[in-house]
């Protein structure tokens, strides 16, 4: 709460960034970036992974410091010492990763680090704390949540809203929203959009960062594209054009197709995987479906519709409470071991935690799933054979790494995902379950992924793509299944006629 602000005049300069440079070792994350933010602006920042958009916003929000360059805020030199400091002084950021703590109450989360407000002689008054939290929640329009609730009892989306509340209650002059909406369903997004609108109308300012081009074009008034740490171009609302924006993001004309070029649904007659009335209590509520060879089956819905659990169930990683998943020969996919043996592959939505061993090398990550391909008698591992196997994947997928021994944690998001693909494609998976395969991946890699899926389809493999992003589902699927509350609500066939609005109806 910046008390010094008396009157908010639209168009007044709030923040300037000039010649900001930030390097990590020899990597230049930001190169002489300058920008100006005025009252009433809702500025979108967009760019591929590693373009510097998160770096610039985190420097503004006090999370890290620039190597060179100046910032001013409200006409004064701006050099926040921490995110908390920045927030106190009027710049707040809602961060990308989860920013709440499950083990404590909602109120404690909201006022984390500010308990002195509610304490005397070091002793905290719970009542005051809860009352204050309730007021904050009410203010931004969050219902059904009260301050004394344990955070752990809230669902994912409600937690994200608490995070938003945590920042917004301080009424910063500048609100930075970093990839927040990915985690939100429609209701949550609306709460956030309302806040953005309010900020615009109150002549404060918002910096909005998102991967979702459609969303960012919808929400923002201007859009700045960053690439490799450089400011490339700023688009005004009137200039918004998806292709132009994409082109400036990747710095070249998009070569070839982005999604599939055809609009004809096709698949072989053979059923590869059969899901029969699967029930997972609390998540999946009686889903039946078939996946055919040579088919890309899309599964869409809101993030908590049960599709992610369904994905795991299909791979045998979650045991269904009812129903079963079977292969073409009737084998029941009871566990991951059976799945592996029968050439299923699974790419998790939570890549870093579930699909990769971060501390291990590219080699180890790719090789771990492909032993029957290169190990002698599926047991003895010889260095040369293993390296050859791995190098084939690295070359085939153009994984950018200094060597196959580079630790995966040092790769970019896109390359990490390529490693995961390499792991499953290399061993010749016949059925690939891809849960949000392009999450946190930049456009260049996305395109490569889509093309790979097309190639795999043409080889007769089955692909189940679970995604929260409608455009890619529509762009890639032969059939698209929509889920809601653990049930299949609708099935669409591939067609150029499909519309977002039509599909969303079945999701919410």
């Amino acid at each position, binding site marked *: 709460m910046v008390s010094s602000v008396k009157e908010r005049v639209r168009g007044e300069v709030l923040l300037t960034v000039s010649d900001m440079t930030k390097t990590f070792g*020899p990597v230049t994350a930001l190169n002489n970036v300058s920008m100006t933010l005025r009252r009433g602006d809702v500025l979108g920042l967009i760019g591929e992974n590693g373009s510097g958009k998160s770096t610039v916003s985190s420097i503004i929000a006090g999370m890290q410091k620039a190597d060179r360059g100046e910032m001013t805020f409200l006409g004064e030199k701006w050099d926040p010492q921490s995110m908390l400091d920045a927030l106190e002084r009027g710049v707040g950021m809602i961060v990308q990763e989860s920013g709440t703590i499950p083990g404590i109450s909602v109120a404690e989360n909201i006022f984390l680090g500010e308990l002195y407000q509610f304490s005397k002689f070091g002793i905290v008054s719970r009542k005051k704390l809860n009352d204050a939290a309730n007021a904050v929640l009410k203010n931004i329009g969050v219902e059904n949540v009260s301050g004394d609730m344990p955070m752990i009892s809230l669902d994912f989306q409600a937690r994200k809203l608490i995070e938003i509340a945590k920042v917004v209650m301080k009424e910063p002059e500048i609100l930075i929203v970093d990839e927040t909406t990915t985690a939100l369903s429609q209701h949550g997004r609306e709460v956030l959009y309302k806040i953005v609108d309010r900020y615009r109308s109150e002549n404060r300012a918002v910096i909005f960062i998102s991967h979702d081009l459609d969303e960012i074009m919808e929400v923002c008034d201007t859009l700045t594209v960053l690439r490799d740490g450089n400011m490339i171009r700023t688009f005004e609302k009137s200039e918004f054009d998806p292709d132009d924006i994409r082109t400036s993001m990747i710095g070249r004309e998009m070569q070839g197709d982005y999604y599939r070029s055809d609009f004809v649904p096709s698949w072989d007659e053979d059923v590869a995987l059969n899901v029969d009335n699967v029930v997972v209590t609390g998540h999946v509520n009686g889903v039946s479906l078939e996946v055919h060879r040579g088919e890309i089956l899309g599964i869409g819905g809101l993030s908590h519709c049960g599709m992610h659990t369904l994905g795991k169930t299909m791979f045998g990683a979650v045991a269904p409470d009812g129903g079963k998943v079977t292969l073409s020969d009737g084998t029941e996919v009871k566990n991951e071991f059976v799945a592996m043996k029968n050439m299923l592959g699974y790419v998790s939505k939570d890549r870093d935690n579930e699909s990769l*061993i971060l501390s*291990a090398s590219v080699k180890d990550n790719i090789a771990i*799933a492909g032993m029957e391909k290169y190990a002698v008698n599926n047991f*003895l591992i010889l260095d040369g054979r293993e390296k050859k196997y791995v190098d084939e994947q690295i070359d085939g997928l153009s994984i*950018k790494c200094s*060597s196959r021994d580079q630790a995966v944690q040092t790769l970019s998001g896109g390359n990490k995902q390529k490693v995961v693909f390499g*792991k499953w494609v290399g061993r010749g998976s016949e059925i690939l379950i891809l849960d949000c395969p392009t999450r946190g991946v930049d456009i260049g890699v996305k395109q490569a992924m889509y093309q790979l899926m097309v190639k795999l389809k043409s080889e007769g493999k089955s692909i189940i793509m679970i995604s929260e992003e409608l455009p890619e589902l529509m762009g890639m699927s032969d059939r698209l299944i929509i889920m809601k509350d653990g049930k299949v609500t609708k099935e669409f066939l591939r067609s150029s006629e499909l519309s977002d609005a039509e599909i969303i109806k079945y999701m919410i």
Partner: protein
Amino acid sequence: MDKAKTNDKYSRRQKIISLTPIIGLVLLLALYVVIGLIKDINFKAGFEAIVNQSVILAIVATGAIFIFTLGSFDISLGASTLVSACAGGLIYNATGSVWLMLVACVAVSLIASLISSVLGSIFNLPVFVTTVAMMSVLSAISEMLITGKGGNQIRITGLSGLENIWLKLIVLAIFSALCVFVFEFTKIGRRQKALGGNPVCAKLTGISVKKYAILAFVMAGIGIGLGGFLTAIRASTITSGTAGDIGMNIFIAIVFGGMPISGGPRSRIYAAIIGSFSIKILSQILTMLLAAVPGANGIAQMVRAVFFLAMVYLASINYRTKMLPR
């Protein structure tokens, strides 16, 4: 992108740091020789002492690497070695056969290991805690074995011929070769490392956590059994204090040898051997320097503690985080 370059430097630095334990061992050895020369020690006896005192620890620790690799820990290793030695001693006394004794040692330690790991697997308990309980149980069982016929010891006579450094070195060589083979050249080792690196990912790659946890304990069990066998031969009199210095020292040794505490892909078999020899050489050096000083044992232990912390600090210098590690 320049990123490749950074990573190159990163991995080069990583490589150098991973050599720290070896550099440490070499330096300690050099220091030992220098001080030994000044103190005019009997080097033949000295090196024999180092081998004698390191090998059993090294063998048990080598097996334990498998458990460590999974990111788990067995606190009952010392107690298990003792039970194994007791069983071996009793069997030898009853049958007079060294081979049966060896079988008994390994069998008993395998059973103990399996109980811990299977208990953990079936009831979904943290193995660490089951081994804490196992430690008490095994100590109590050894107590019973040792005092079973009255008296406070199991005395084994007639095996002193086997008490030499060559048998120890041969057993160490064979066992560590087996471990290196399993660890570096088979599916089992790869999967163990993967499990240690990220159990969730490993599970989603079709690797059975339980199966490989039990396998790890089997490998450790073999090591303990061999350690118990050699302990029985070396000590020739087994009391409740036998193998007492093995338990926690294994932890110290493997960490000293450069094993990452969290296990995973950077696990190395040789950490056990390097670490075991390093701490024993360090002890020798301190014995030479301090044996005549009052309270020397305390001082020696403090020096060991500082060395241990310094060594681990150096070896993990690349992994500082903003948050405190847990």
